[in-house]
C-alpha cells in the first residue's frame, strides 16, 4: 500500500514548474530593499574608501533567505560593490548602509533606533508602526501590494538624502 505513495512522492519531485502571475511577498521586499539605494545618497564618510563595499544587512531572523543574495549579486551602488550581511546585534549595524530590521526585533526597536541615532544607516522594516517608532522606511501592505512609507525627518537625522523621485513615490509621515 505504500508503493503508490512513494510513486506519488517521486512524481512530485519531478513535477514541472508553473509560471506565477504574481511574486512572493519577500521577493518584492528584497527588490525594494536593494532598489531603494539607487534613490538615496549616503555621505562620503559612510565609506572607508572609494571601493569599500555597500553593506545591505538583515538584523534578526532573516525572512529573505537567498533571494536577497541573488538580487544583490554583482551589483554596485554609486560604484561600491554590494555585500549582503546577516547580523544578530545592533552594534554590527553601524557598519551597514541599509539594514532591514526583522520582526523578531519588535521588542528591541527603540533600543536599536537609539543606538543608530545620527548614524548614516537606512533602517527598513515591515513591523507595524515601524516609522512611527523611529524607523526610516516601512513596507506596508495595501490592496495586496507593497507600499512604501517614509519619514523625511528620519532621513535628515541620519544624514541621508532621499531623491525627489523617492519622496514622490512613497507616502510620507509628517509631524509624528
Amino acid at each position, binding site marked *: *500500500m*505504500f508503493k503508490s*505513495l*512513494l510513486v*506519488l*512522492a517521486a*512524481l*512530485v*519531485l519531478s*513535477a514541472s*514548474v*508553473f*509560471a*506565477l502571475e*504574481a*511574486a*512572493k*511577498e519577500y*521577493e*518584492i521586499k528584497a*527588490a*525594494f530593499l*536593494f*532598489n*531603494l539605494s539607487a*534613490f538615496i545618497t549616503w555621505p562620503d564618510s559612510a565609506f572607508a574608501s572609494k571601493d569599500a563595499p555597500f553593506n545591505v544587512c538583515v538584523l*534578526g*531572523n*532573516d*525572512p*529573505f*533567505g*537567498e*533571494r536577497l543574495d*541573488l*538580487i544583490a549579486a554583482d*551589483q554596485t551602488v554609486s560604484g561600491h560593490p554590494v555585500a549582503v550581511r*546577516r*547580523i*544578530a*546585534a*545592533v*552594534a554590527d549595524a553601524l557598519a551597514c548602509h541599509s539594514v532591514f530590521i526583522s*520582526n*523578531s526585533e*519588535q*521588542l*528591541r526597536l*527603540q*533600543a536599536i533606533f*537609539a543606538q543608530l541615532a545620527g548614524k548614516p544607516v537606512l533602517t527598513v522594516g515591515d513591523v507595524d508602526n515601524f516609522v512611527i517608532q523611529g524607523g526610516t522606511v516601512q513596507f506596508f*501592505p495595501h490592496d*495586496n*501590494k*507593497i*507600499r*512604501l512609507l517614509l519619514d523625511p525627518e528620519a532621513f535628515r537625522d541620519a544624514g541621508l538624502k532621499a531623491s525627489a*523621485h*523617492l519622496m514622490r513615490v*512613497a507616502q510620507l509621515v509628517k509631524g509624528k
Partner: protein
Amino acid sequence: MKKWFLAVAIGLSSPAYALTDAEKSRLEALRGFSLEALQEVEVKLDDVFDVFDGLVKARKVSVASGVEQNIATAPAVTTLITAQDIEAIGARTLDEALEMVPGLHVGKRGGGYEYIYTIRGIHTNPSPEVLVLLNGLPFKTAFDGRAATDGFPVSVIQRIEVIRGPGSALYGADAFAGVINIITKHAADIQDTELGVRAGSFQSRNAWLQRGGQVGGIDLAVMLDWQRSDGHDGWVEADAQTQFDAVFGQYSAPPASQAPGKLNAQRDLLHVYLDAGFSKHWRWHGGLRRNQDAGLGLGIAQALDPPDNASMADSDVLTTDLSYHNVGFAPNWEVQAQLAYQYVDGLGEYIMFPPGAFGGAFPGGFFWDAGRQNDELRLEGSALFRGWNNHALRLGAGWQQSRLRDVAERRNWEVDLTTGMPTPLGEMIDFSNSAAAYIGATSRRNRFAYVQDTWAFHPAWELTAGIRYDDFSDFGNTTNPRLALVWKTTPTLTSKFLYGSAFRAPYFLELGINNPLLGIGNSGLQAETIDTYELAWDWFASPDLHLALNLFHYQIEDKIGFPGGQYQYANYGKWDGQGFELETRWKLSTRAALLFNYAYQDNEDETGEPVADALRQSAYIRLDWMFAPNWFVDINARWIADRPRAANDWREDMDDYFISDVTLRRKDIKGKWNFAVGVRNVFDEDAREPTTVNIGVTNDLPLPGREWFAEARYTFE
C-alpha cells in the same frame, strides 16, 4: 511502518537549498523594476497552494503570551493551523484538523463517541487537562471539564492556535497539558457570500452559508453550518452486557447483549456564529450550537443500544462575548477587556443496558435520563505596557462565576447499598432537583490576577516571567509561575528554555456526583498540578527547510481519579513523563511541500506502570502538491502506536494503526468555484481507540473504515 518513513526520509534527502530557475528569473526581473512598478506587483499573500510559506513564514500566534508573536520566538511551544491548512487537508471538523499537531492525538471515548484530547501522553476520560478556548475565552464548562467541540465545523474557523505544554500562568485552570484556541472568522475573512455543500459516506450531509461585509459601519460576519450523519458502521464484537450475560447465564438467564452489533455515531448539528466589529475597538461574538439526537457510541455504560430504540443526547450551547481592544489607549498602553457568557442546556436519554439486562430484572431496559443547565459568566481586563525600554509588561485580572442548575433525572433503577447491585423500580421515577438526584445544584466563583513581563535584556535574548493567582470559592487557591528564556542563537536558529506550573480544577461532577453506580464525589478535592520543563529549538536549515525539536519533562501531583477499586474520587495519582516532538516542514519545489512530525513520550503513574491508553509514539506525514494549474492534491497519513493497557486489564495489547487520507481539490484562485473530493482511511484500516476500563468491550472502540466525500463551494456577491 517504520521502514516506510525511513524510505521516504532517505529517498527525498537531497536538500532543496537553491532557488528554482523560476524564482531566479522572477527576482532578476523584479530587480529591474522601478519603484512605481514594484508598488504595483501583486503579492500572493494567500497563496493557496504554497503550504510551506503559509505555515512557516507567516506564523504568528497570540496564545503564547497574549501578544501577537512570531512562533519561532514565542515563549511556548506552539502550532498554528490556518484556514489554508484546513482547506488543503480537506478537514471537515476541528478534530480532523488537530491531528496534524505533533504530540496531540484526538481519540474517542466509547460512551458518547466524543473527543479525548491527549497531549504528550496525558490521556484521561473525559479529558479536562486540555483547555479549549473560543476566540481566547474558555469554552469548556465547570460541569465536566469538557468543551462542546465534537463536530465543530471548520467552515467558521479562521485559524487554530495550539500550545503543547502549560498555560496556567496566563489562562488559569485546565491549561495543563495544553491549550487549543479556536479563532472564528471575521467579516474580512469571508469574501462576499460563500455557499458550501458536502456529502459523503454514512449518509453524511453538510451545508454552510456565510456572508461578510459592512452594514451601517459595522463589520459583520454571519455564519451558518448544518451537518448530519448516520455515523459510521463500526462493528462491536462484545460489550459490557456480554460480560453480564456470561455471569447471569450461569443462572440460565437468556443473553441480553446487542453485541455483536453496530455502534451509534449519529450526529445532527447546527452552528450559527455572528461576529461584529464596530467603532474600531469593539467586537461582539454570538454563537449557538444545537446538538440533536446525538448517538452515544457504545452507550454510556459501554453496552450497545437495541436497534429500534437508541439512546439520544440533545444539547444547546449559547456563547456571547463583548470585547474592547485598544492598541493605543494611551501612549505605551494597550488595553483589552472582555465580558463573556456561556449557557449550556443538555439532556440525555440513555439506555444504559438493553431489555432483559441483569438476568431479566429489567425486561424493558435499564434507563437513565439525565439533564442539567449550567452557565458561566466572565469578566476580564488586561493591559500591556511598553513604556520601559526593552520591556513588555502585561497585567490582568478577572472574575468568573460557574453555576449548575436544574438537574433533571429520571430512572427505573436504584442501587442496593448493601449489595452494590442495581434493583428495579418498576417504572421511571423522577428525581429531578431532589436530594436523590445524581448531583445537586452548585456554583463556583473564580477570581484571578496575573502579571507577566517580557524583557529583551540582550540583543539575542528575551526573558519572559509571569505569575498568576487564582482563588476558587469551592476548592481554594493556587499560584502558577512561568519562566521562558528565548535565545536567538543564530539568525536562523532559536533556542528556548521553558518552565511552567499549571493546574486543573476539579469539575462539579468530581466534587459532587452522588450515585453508587456512577461514582461518588469528593468535596475535599484539591487541584491537580503539573510542573513542566521544556527545551526547544526552531531552525531554518535553509529558506525551504524548517525543523523544530522540543524536549519535555513533566511531573503531575494530586491526579484526580478513582484509587484502585474505589468509587469515590480522590487526589492520589502521581505521573512522571518525558519525551520529544520533532517537526519538519520542507518545500520540495514551488509546487510541493512535505510535512513530517514525530512524537514520542514515556510516562508512568505512581505505581511505576505506563499510563494506561496513552499513546507513546505517533507520526504524521503530509504531502501537498499542485500538479496542474488550479489542481491540488493532499495526501496525509498518521501512525498511532504503543498504547499500554492498565496493569489490571487482561485484554490483548492495542494494535497500532495507520490511517491515510487523500484530498483532491480544484480551485479557481480568483474564481467563484472550489470543488473537492476526499477519501478517508484509504486502506480501510481497522483502527481502534482504547475503552478506558475493561468492562467487557474486548476489542475496543472502532473508528471509521474507508469513507469518501465530495464538496463544492460557490462564492457570489
